[in-house]
């Protein structure tokens, strides 16, 4: 397959990985096929995914609905089991329960015990991490303040709005002060202020040296904060790399020149034409992640290639 854009070498499928301990997540031909009740293969949700996420970066995992993003996260967290391939979190296989002490997870839907209040919810998850009582209380206070839920800490979660549930979800993902935070649609349901605060929080986590794996449909959010992204569709990795690499156009040269007069610009333009070059624009070419995302998905759909979806 010829990829239309620059590709980070780390993500080439089938590449032999150089083992190192500076990765937070690594998958090797990670495959997941869901089976029917009778054990027959129903759908290939993830097909030989090879991804390495380095420690200390914010990584965005993008894809349309049903592309295999959430399946990837569930496989990484050991909620479901791979049909083939392997995955490692912080250097440990995903079935190692102890490594979860260093992982925080925000699921796509904020699913908590609705009869508990915010305090009790965080206390429950804190106890699962065996955090001592005093430390737990300190962390709960700090996190509730950080996500702006101090005012509703004694209110049962069933009375929370979707945005508030998202905030408590983020708080519970951070209760153990994790090294790796996996966030599935963290800004879903949040108002613009909440979205900004969440993005700031993610950047702040990165500044603290933590790794963030982020799944989102809100491409502008991903573009704003992610160091690197990967786009998957129908269970297969389509493209990945840094935002800069992915959004730049290789056949267009961009010169950033300061303090150039109009005359000089004209001369430069003429010089380029003399050298058989074509001046497209004197402005920097720019694209959005959204354009890229839609292009990738659209191209894939147009080819009608449907290999990954296998039926009985």
């Amino acid at each position: 397959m010829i990829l239309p854009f620059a590709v980070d070498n780390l993500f080439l499928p089938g590449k032999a990985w150089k083992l190192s301990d500076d990765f937070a997540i690594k998958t090797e031909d990670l495959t997941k096929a869901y089976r029917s009740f009778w054990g027959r293969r129903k759908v290939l949700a993830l097909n030989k995914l090879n991804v390495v996420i380095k420690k200390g970066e914010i990584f965005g995992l993008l894809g349309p609905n049903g592309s295999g993003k959430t399946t990837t996260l569930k496989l990484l967290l050991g909620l479901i089991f791979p049909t083939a391939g392997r995955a490692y979190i912080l250097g440990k296989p995903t079935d190692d329960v102890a490594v979860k002490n260093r992982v925080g997870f925000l699921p796509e839907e904020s699913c908590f015990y609705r009869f508990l209040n915010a305090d009790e919810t965080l206390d429950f998850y804190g106890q699962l991490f065996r955090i001592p009582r005093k430390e737990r209380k300190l962390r709960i206070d700090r996190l509730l303040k950080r996500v702006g839920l101090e005012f509703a800490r004694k209110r049962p979660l069933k009375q929370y709005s979707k945005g508030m549930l998202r905030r408590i979800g983020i708080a519970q993902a951070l209760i153990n002060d994790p090294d790796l935070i996996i966030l599935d649609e963290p800004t879903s349901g949040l108002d613009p202020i909440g979205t900004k605060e969440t993005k700031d929080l993610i950047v702040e986590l990165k500044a603290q040296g933590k790794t963030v794996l982020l799944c989102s449909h809100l491409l502008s959010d991903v573009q704003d904060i992610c160091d690197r992204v990967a786009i998957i569709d129908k269970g297969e990795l389509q493209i990945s790399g840094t935002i800069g690499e992915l959004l730049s156009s290789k056949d267009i040269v961009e010169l950033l020149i300061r303090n150039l007069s109009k005359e000089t610009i004209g001369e430069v333009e003429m010089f380029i034409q003399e050298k058989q070059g074509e001046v497209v624009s004197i402005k920097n070419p720019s694209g959005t992640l959204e354009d890229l995302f839609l292009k990738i998905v659209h191209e894939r759909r147009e080819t009608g290639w449907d290999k990954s979806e296998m039926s009985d």
Partner: protein
Amino acid sequence: MQQILVIAKQTFKEAVRNKILFIFIILGLITICGSVFMPVVGDGREKIKIVESMCFRSITFFGTLAAVLLSASSIPTDIENKVLSTVTAKPVQRINIIFGKILGFVYIIGVLLLIMGSVSYVLIRVTALKESSQGGRGLLAREKFDPVDLQIAGDSARKIGNVSWIGGGKEAAVWKFKGLYSKDKNDDLEIEANFLIEAKKKSIGKIPVKVKIINPSSARVLTESMEISRNKPLFFKLNSKSLDGSGELTVVVSPENPDDFLGIRSDSLRLFWGEKSFGCNYLKGLIVISTQFFLMVIIAVLGSTFLSLPVNILFCLFVFFCGNITDFMRDLSTVINIIETREHDHGVSAVMQKSNIFLIYLNHIIKKPILLLSYILPDFRYFSVGKYFIDGINIPGIKILMGFGYAVLYTLFCLPISFFVFKRKEIA
């Protein structure tokens, strides 16, 4: 261990805050208190029996229902609501989730038993006090002794099913008791006889019988003539001095009239000696019932690891229903066997016999599976204690031990399967 306790506490809190536990308790208490208003025909003891019976049935019914519905629904609901995905994403071994849930249900059942059991106890005590003041027999927890041997003396006794019929002047039923012991030696021995009767004159509801009580060690014989009524047990008391401290007794019963017949079963004669504390007996009853609830929790948790919520509830109710009729299931299997045998019993040689396809199907599709089920499914007869209270009998320690041992064995069988299945379960 801390994680198990946290999950258990959470499970309990869920049942309390969702008010499900209180619904069961309130419904149970309504039924328990309603037993006082049940119409009763008979003496004061009958009233106490009704109250005791209703109380134990209510506790068993609502306790089982709570155990089944709560424990069968907890894991499937948590998976459906995706709460379990946040829990399993934490450093929690899945085995701890199972243990935590079970412990949580044990808390729940404990609270239910404590509340319903306390109210029932007070109600039974008050009823007994009221009936005793009116001259009725109060609360009983008599020590029961089973015969070590039953022999039918005489040649012409007919046996139909488990009933032996003995005729007057020809046969006699001989029960032998050993190891009779009571702390209070001054207590009288109480003998209760429940016989079927067949008199020549059908209109007569009573037949005369001769009862001989023999002390084998001293060879002392006491002979009494009594009358046995149809459908009414015969009670008579015996001075404990007639035992001479030997702890052995032989009771011989035979109809006096040659035309009368007595139908005898092994449990037709029961001997009681000594009274135990009712409170202690009541507590023992609750312990046995709680063991049954625990077993139901284990089964429901097992089902919840691989079945959906409605299917699991149906599965648990099916197990509970069948577990209470294992005898019937085995009998049904025997009945089919008898029909099958009779069908072929026409004096025709086996070669000439034509196979009855219906019976072959009946054998393979119904009989064998039913028989197999009756052995695989838990036998809840081990936990049935209501009869002890109705009859005013002290629950023997062996009954508690057997119930407990059976529950432990069944748990040891079910729990590893639950762990195995849940460990491989995908929490999508």
